[in-house]
C-alpha cells in the first residue's frame, strides 16, 4: 500500500500549515492554518486542490487541528463555514477552548481595523467550533470502523498535541509544533513507540541547538535590565495567551533572583480570562506547576501587577506586557505611541505580525509610522525582535524520530535551506528515507507488508517466562537503554526489572500453513509430533583458511617490539594453528563472551555445538586452516562467530 502526503501549506515554508494525507484509502487534512504574512488569497491554503466542485465533506474523512496558533487553525472557519466542509474536526480540549479567542482577535484586526469584506464572522467562528470534537490525550478514537486517531502531548503551547493516525496496519504521526525540552510552564513532548510508517514533523528550528535558546533568554533579560537600569521603559506586546505566560515566568524569576524593584505590569483585557484557562487546564502544564497549584498558582505573580490606565503618566522606569501583540489597538498601541519617540525606551516584539499592522511596520524598521489618518509617530525607541516560540531543535527532532521509531520522515514547517541539512542528517543517522515536499508536491511512500499470523498462546507464554527467568541484562536493544528524560520512560525505569516489560524477546517455533486457514505459529515439538515428521539434524564442517606466513610475520614483529630483543622469536617450533586459535579465542571473548559461555582446551574452542579446532588428520593438515563445525540449530551463533573469526585472522595482516 501507499501513503501519500501533500502539503497545501507549510511545505518548505512556515505559515498556513495544511497537509493532506491519504492512508489506507482515507483522506485526512492535518491542520487548517492561515499565513500571517499575506492578506490576499495566499493567506489561506488552496482548498481547490482537494476538490474543484467543493464536495469537501465527501472528499475528506476528517480534519485534525494540532494546536491553537493561527498558522495551524486560522483558516478553519473559512473552510467549514464558507467552503462548506461539514465532516468531523478533532482537537484537544484546551485548543477548542482557546482557538476561538484567537480567531476572533484575528477577525477583528482584519475586518474592524482593515475593513476587509468577505471574511468569516463571529457567528461563523461559533458555528465552526460547534463542529469540533474535543479529544483527550492517549485516548484512542475511532473516526470510523477503520480509522483510529490518538493524541500525544506536544509541549509548545497549552493543549498542543501530536496525532497518531492508523488505518489497518499502516500508520502515520503528525507532530504539529512541538518541544522536546520542558520549559517553565509546559512539559516536553512525548510519544509511545508507535513505529509509524511516516512521521510528518515540523522543522522550524532544524539548525538551531538548545543552548542558543538559553543564551537568547539571557540576552533578552539583559536587554530589559539594561534598559530599565538606564531609566527607560520596556514594552512587550503580547497576545494574552501562549508564550506570554512563559515570558512572565522568565521575568518574574529574574526579578526575584536579582531583587529588582522596577515595576512590571500586565495589561488586562484577556489576562483574567487567560489565567482562568490556565487554571482550568492546569493538567496540561508541567509537573511542577501541576503539583503545586493548590497552594501556589504559578500564574499568580509576585512582581507582575495588573496595569491601570493611569500608570501611563508615571515617570518610569517600568516593564509592561501589553495586549494586543500586533500593536493594532488597545494598551500596546497607546503605550507605543507615548514611548516610541524616546530612544531610552525599548520595544520587544516576541512574535509575528500581520502585514499592515503597526507591529509589522515596527518590525520592518520604519522610522516614522502613520498610525491613522491623524496621527504619525517618530520611532526612536530600540526595537528588539525575540522569538520565544517553543519548537524542537535538531536534537529534539532526532530524539522524537528515535522515540517513535519512524520508518519514513517528512519535513514540513521550516525553511528549505535548513531542512536540507536536517534531511541528510536523518538519512545518514537512521538510514531511513526523508522527504521535504514543497506546497502541492505529492510524496508517495510505499509501506512494508506484514502478514498477520496466529501465534499459539502457550508458545508465547513459554518464551516470555523463559526470557524473564533468564534475566539477561543485555536482551533489550540498545536504543531503548539510551537515556531519555521523559517521565514515562523514567517511570518504566523506576520499576523493578522483573516488572518492566521486555521490548523484544527471541521466539522460535513452527509455522503451519493449511490452505484456506490462517497461518499458525506453533510449538515446534507439537507440530512435529502431530505430523509425525522427524527432526533433521544438519552438521556443518567448514574449513577456514588463513595466511599462516602473514600471521607468523605479524606475531614476530609484535614480539620483537614487545621484548626489544631478537632472541624471543622463532627459536622453538612454530605452531601457527595454536596461535590462530589463541587469537580467535581472545576475539570471541571480547565480542560475545558476555553473552555465551566459551570453553577452551588445548586444540579446540567450544561454544554450544560449535567447535573450532586445528586440523588433526593428515589430509586435513595438508589443506591447512582452522576447522569449524556446528549444528544447524546454532546457525545464528555460528554466523556471528564466523564473522568474528574472519576479522580476527584478517587483522594479522
Amino acid at each position, binding site marked *: 500500500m501507499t501513503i501519500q502526503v*501533500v502539503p497545501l501549506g507549510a511545505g518548505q515554508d512556515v505559515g498556513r500549515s495544511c497537509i493532506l494525507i491519504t492512508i489506507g*484509502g*482515507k483522506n485526512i487534512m492535518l491542520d487548517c492554518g492561515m499565513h500571517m504574512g499575506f492578506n490576499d488569497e495566499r493567506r489561506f491554503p488552496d482548498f481547490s486542490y482537494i476538490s474543484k466542485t467543493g464536495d469537501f465533506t*465527501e472528499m475528506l474523512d476528517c480534519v485534525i487541528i494540532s494546536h491553537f496558533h493561527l498558522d495551524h487553525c486560522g483558516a478553519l472557519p473559512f473552510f467549514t463555514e464558507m467552503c462548506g466542509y461539514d465532516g468531523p474536526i478533532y482537537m484537544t480540549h484546551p485548543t*477548542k*477552548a482557546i482557538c476561538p479567542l484567537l480567531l476572533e482577535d484575528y477577525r477583528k484586526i482584519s475586518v474592524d481595523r482593515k475593513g476587509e469584506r468577505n471574511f468569516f464572522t463571529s457567528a461563523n467562528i461559533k458555528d465552526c*467550533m460547534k463542529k469540533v470534537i474535543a479529544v483527550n490525550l*492517549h*485516548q*484512542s478514537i475511532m473516526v470510523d470502523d477503520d480509522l483510529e486517531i490518538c493524541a500525544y502531548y506536544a509541549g509548545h503551547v497549552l493543549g498542543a498535541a501530536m496525532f497518531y493516525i492508523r488505518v489497518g496496519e499502516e500508520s502515520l504521526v503528525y507532530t504539529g509544533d512541538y518541544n522536546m525540552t520542558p520549559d517553565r510552564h509546559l512539559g516536553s513532548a512525548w510519544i509511545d*513507540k508507535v513505529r509509524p510508517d511516516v512521521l510528518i514533523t515540523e522543522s522550524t528550528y532544524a539548525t538551531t541547538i538548545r543552548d542558543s535558546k538559553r543564551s537568547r533568554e539571557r540576552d533578552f533579560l539583559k536587554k530589559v535590565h539594561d534598559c530599565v537600569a538606564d531609566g527607560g521603559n520596556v514594552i512587550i506586546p503580547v497576545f494574552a495567551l501562549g508564550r506570554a505566560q512563559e515570558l512572565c515566568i522568565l521575568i518574574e524569576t529574574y526579578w526575584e533572583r536579582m531583587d529588582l524593584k522596577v515595576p512590571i505590569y500586565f495589561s488586562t483585557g484577556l489576562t483574567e480570562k487567560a489565567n*482562568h484557562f490556565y487554571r*482550568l*487546564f492546569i493538567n496540561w502544564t508541567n509537573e511542577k506547576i501541576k503539583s503545586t*497549584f*493548590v497552594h501556589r498558582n504559578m500564574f499568580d505573580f509576585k512582581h507582575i501587577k495588573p496595569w491601570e490606565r493611569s500608570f501611563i503618566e508615571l515617570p518610569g522606569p517600568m516593564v509592561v506586557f501589553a495586549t494586543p501583540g500586533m500593536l493594532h489597538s488597545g494598551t500596546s498601541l497607546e503605550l507605543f505611541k507615548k514611548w516610541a519617540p524616546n530612544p531610552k525606551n525599548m520595544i520587544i516584539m516576541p512574535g509575528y505580525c500581520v502585514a499592515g499592522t503597526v507591529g509589522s511596520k515596527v518590525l520592518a524598521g520604519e522610522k516614522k509610522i502613520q498610525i491613522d489618518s491623524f496621527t504619525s509617530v517618530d520611532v526612536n525607541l530600540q526595537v528588539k525582535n525575540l522569538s520565544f516560540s517553543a519548537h524542537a531543535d535538531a536534537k529534539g527532532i532526532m530524539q522524537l524520530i528515535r522515540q517513535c521509531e519512524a520508518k519514513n520522515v517528512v519535513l514540513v514547517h521550516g525553511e528549505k535551506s535548513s531542512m536540507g541539512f536536517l534531511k541528510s542528517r536523518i538519512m545518514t543517522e537512521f538510514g531511513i528515507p526523508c522527504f521535504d515536499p514543497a506546497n*502541492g508536491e*505529492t510524496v508517495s511512500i510505499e509501506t*512494508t*507488508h*506484514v*502478514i*498477520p*499470523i*496466529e*501465534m499459539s*498462546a502457550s508458545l*508465547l*507464554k513459554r518464551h516470555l517466562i523463559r526470557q524473564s527467568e533468564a534475566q*539477561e541484562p543485555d536482551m533489550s*536493544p540498545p536504543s531503548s537503554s539510551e537515556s531519555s528524560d521523559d517521565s514515562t520512560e523514567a517511570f518504566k525505569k523506576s520499576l*523493578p526489572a522483573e*516488572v518492566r516489560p521486555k521490548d*523484544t524477546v*527471541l*521466539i*522460535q517455533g513452527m*509455522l*503451519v*500453513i493449511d*490452505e484456506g486457514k490462517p497461518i*499458525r*505459529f506453533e510449538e515446534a515439538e507439537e507440530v512435529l509430533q502431530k505430523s509425525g*515428521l*522427524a*527432526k533433521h*539434524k*544438519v*552438521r556443518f564442517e*567448514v574449513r*577456514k*583458511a588463513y595466511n599462516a606466513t602473514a600471521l607468523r610475520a605479524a606475531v614476530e614483529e609484535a614480539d620483537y617490539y614487545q621484548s626489544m630483543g631478537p632472541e624471543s622469536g622463532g627459536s622453538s617450533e612454530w605452531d601457527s594453528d595454536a596461535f590462530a586459535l589463541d587469537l580467535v579465542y581472545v576475539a570471541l571473548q571480547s565480542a560475545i563472551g558476555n*553473552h*555465551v559461555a566459551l570453553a577452551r582446551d588445548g586444540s579446540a574452542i567450544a561454544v554450544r555445538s560449535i567447535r573450532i579446532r586445528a586440523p588433526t588428520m593428515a589430509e586435513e593438515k595438508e589443506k591447512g586452516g582452522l576447522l*569449524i563445525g556446528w549444528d544447524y540449530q546454532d*546457525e*545464528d*551463533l555460528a554466523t*556471528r562467530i*564466523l564473522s568474528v573469526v574472519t576479522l580476527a585472522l584478517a587483522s594479522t595482516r
Partner: protein
Amino acid sequence: MFKLPDFSGIDLKSVDVVLISNFNHMLSLPYLTEFTDFQGRIFATEPTIEFGRSGSGLYPAYNMADIKACIDKIQPVRFREHVSLYGSLKLTAHSAGYCLGSSNWHIQTGTESIAFVSSSSIQTNLHPDLFDGSLLEKASTVIAADLCPKGATSYNSGVNDVCAKVAMTVARKGHVLVPCAISGFLFDLMEDIHLHLNHMGLTHQVQYAFISPVAETALQYSNILAEWMAPRKQEMVYLPEAPLLHGILQEKGLSKTYKSVHGAFSSDLKHPCIVFGGHPSLRSGPMVNLLQMWGGQAQNSIVLVEPRMDSAASLEPFKDLEISKRICPLDIRMSIDQLVDVMRKHKHPKHVLVPSSNTILTRSDGTAELADAKNTTSTPACQWSAYKYAEPLQLGIGSLYETVLLSEELAKGIFPQSFGTTSIAAISGSLSIYNNRMQLEPASVGGRQILALHSQRQLCGTMNLNTLLTGLAMIGVSDPVVTALDEIKDMQEAEIRVEFMLEGKDASIIMRENETIVKCEEAIHISSTVLLLKTLAESDIPPALDGDSHRAYARPLELDIVKFSALVHKGPPITLHPTYPHTPSHPTRFSPNIV
C-alpha cells in the same frame, strides 16, 4: 471501620495486574504493595490516583511514606487508552459514570475478553463522564460488582427530599450538617441544593462550608478535571468557567473550606450554614464537634445521605439531641434491574456474573435466577450466574491464539516444506511488542544481534537425493560424485555422499536418515546452506502415516514448487491479508499535482 480484604488463599506473587476502579476501592493497596510479596503492575486513571494521594486521611493504617511509595507504583491511564501488557493482554479503562475518573475495565487476551463493571452509574445528570457501555459490546464475560442494593433510593428520587429538608432548615435560620466525603455525588448534591435554594429565594442568606483536612485540595483538584466530566460540564470550560459549581461559589466567597471546626470557621459564621464533610459514621471528626455545638437546637438539621452506612446506627448516640434528623440515602449505583436492561441491548452472547446477593437461587446447571423485578433467568444470549465471597471461580476462557504480524523481511528467509495440503516452516525471530501489537522480525538485524546469539534453529523432514541433484544442476554444478554406503555391507550407518565443486571450491554433502553433514570451505558456506534448505524444503515429505518414510531420500525425483514457498517468496503478501480495506472510501483521489 477499616478492614483488609482476606488475601489468604491467594499467592500474591502470582498476581500480574491490579486494576483500580475508583478511589474508594484502593484502601488496601498500600498493604498490598508495601507489606506483601506482590510484584505485579497496578493501573488506575489519573483522577483515581490523585484523589487516592490526597485522600491520605482515608488510610489510617499507613504512614505517609507507605502511601507515597504505593501511589508512585500506580501507572496512570486515561479512558479508552489502550494498554498492552506482555504482548498479549490488552487493558482499557472505560468511564463508569460513578465519580471523577471512575472506570470499568475491558480485559482482552487474544479473541476473548472480560468486562469488569464495578461501581457504575447510568444516570446522565451527574458530573462524571457518562457510563461508557461500549466495553460490554465485545466482552464474552461480564463481571459486575458493587450493584445498588434492592430497595435503595435512587439519587433522582431522593434529592428533592434532601433539598426540601435543607431549604426548610435554612428558612428557619437553622444550620444543616451533611456528613459525607468531599467527593463523588456530593458535587452534584451541592449544586442541586444551591439551585433549589436559589429557586426558593434563600441563597442570599446562606453560606457553605466544607470541613476536612483534604477539602481544599479535593475541591480545587476536582475542578481541573473537566475532561473527565459529562459533556454538559465539559462545555463550561469553553466559557471559561469552573465546571463544578463549588468553584464559582468559592470564588464569590459564598463557600469556604476549613481543615477543622477550630479557628476561622466560627468567626466566619454569619448566616445559616450548610456544612459538608467529616465522616458519615459520626464517631470522630468535625461532625461530632458540630453536633456538640448545634445539636441542642431544634431549628438545625442533620441529613445523612451516604448509602453504604448504617445511618440509624450512626445516629444512635445522638438520639436525645433536639436537632432535626433525616436519613435520606442517595444511591447512584447501577441496580440489578438496570444491569439487566443494559445487557439486553447487546446481541453478542455473554456470560454475566453478579454477586450472589443480587440473585435468588442458583440452579443445578450453575445458572442463576436474579433478584430483579422480573426474576430474570438465563437465555441463550445471556447466561447469568452468581459469585460468592472467597469462592474461586474458574472462567472457561483464555484464548489459544494471539495475532502476530510477520514481517516481510523475515518471511523472505522462510523455506517451508509441504506435505499434503499443509506446509510447515521452522522460524526463529525476535518478537517486538509495541503499541499493542506484536511483530515478528529477523533476530539478526538492528539492535537485536544479541538476541540472535541465543537462537536455536530447527529443521525437519528428510533429504532427497534427486532434489539435491536437481538443485545442484540449477546453480550450475555439474558432475557431482555420488557414493552410496550400505548399512550392512559397509558395516556402518547407511549414507549417501555427494561430492562436488561449488564456486570453484570443494564441497561434500553426506546424507543419513535423520542427519546431513555439509563439509565445505568457509567461503561457500552460505551458498551451501541455501542449497541445503531448498533441498529440504522442496523434498516431498511423505504423509505422516506413510510406512516407508525412512528411505525417503531414495525416492525418485519429484520436484514441485511448494505452494507456501510461492506465497512467501514470490506472491504478493497482501493476499494473505484478509482484513485490509482495499476499496478506497472515496470516489476520486486528489487532483494531480499543482506546481
